[in-house]
């Protein structure tokens, strides 16, 4: 990471930032429709509940390309990637990531602007071995892919 900047924020920058946040609130409405935070889905304590709260039961679709490790070195940090084959799933506006065995399965929802690739990388916590789900919204319909990730115990006192 050579090309980085420090984010320590001076008062002046903070003011700039407040302006940016203002812009963030108003701009998207003009450019594209971002969803509000799906609180009910985040509060859900079971996978079915969380999926229901996202709108409808998603259909499995090969166009959702979901990459997770088969075995994670540690459950606290599990790298994941969600991509979509846009020739079969066009106009994707939303990507959600769920972890079946977590106390609250919904981990993250990404609102995608038109022109943004459907390509999300992040790292999530996985409480124990189980399925991870990627759910995408394409033309108002929900599609998903799932993958099992094994979470392993550490060595000496695990």
């Amino acid at each position: 990471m050579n090309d980085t900047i420090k984010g320590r924020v001076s008062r002046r920058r903070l003011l700039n930032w407040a302006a940016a946040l203002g812009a963030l609130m108003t701009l998207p409405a003009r450019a594209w429709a971002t969803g509000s935070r799906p609180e009910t889905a985040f509060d859900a304590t079971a996978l079915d509940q969380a999926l229901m709260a996202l709108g409808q039961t998603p259909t499995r679709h090969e166009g959702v390309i979901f990459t997770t490790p088969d075995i994670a070195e540690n459950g606290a940090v599990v790298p994941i990637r969600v991509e979509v084959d846009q020739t079969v799933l066009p106009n994707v506006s939303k990507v959600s990531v769920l972890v079946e065995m977590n106390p609250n399965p919904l981990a993250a929802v990404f609102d995608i602007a038109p022109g943004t690739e459907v390509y999300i990388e992040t790292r999530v916590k996985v409480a124990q071995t189980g399925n991870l789900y990627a759910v995408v919204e394409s033309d108002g319909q929900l599609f998903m892919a799932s993958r099992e990730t094994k979470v392993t115990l550490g060595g000496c006192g695990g």
Partner: protein
Amino acid sequence: MAGRIKIRAQKKGELTEVKALMRHPMETGMRKDQAGESIPAHFITEVAVLHGDQTVMQAHWGAAVSANPFLGVRFQGGQSGDAVRVVWTDNQGGTGEGETTIR
């Protein structure tokens, strides 16, 4: 103190690839400290990636995103020298911001 962000933004053909690391504990609220006291929930709830003044992606996060979160996204239309910003807010009212230019 506002949280720090490290960002790389690189032109890859038609696309601009953004990779960001954010300095944040992402506490779930379910852990206890050494003394047995509950550690309060403290996690980023909203993140946005902006190209110039256009939001290319906005995310809603729960506490299941890992500590010191990593985010990678790709968008079309960026030019070398354009500004890319990542901003976040957390459940305790904290904020973070980072900015870089596309290489």
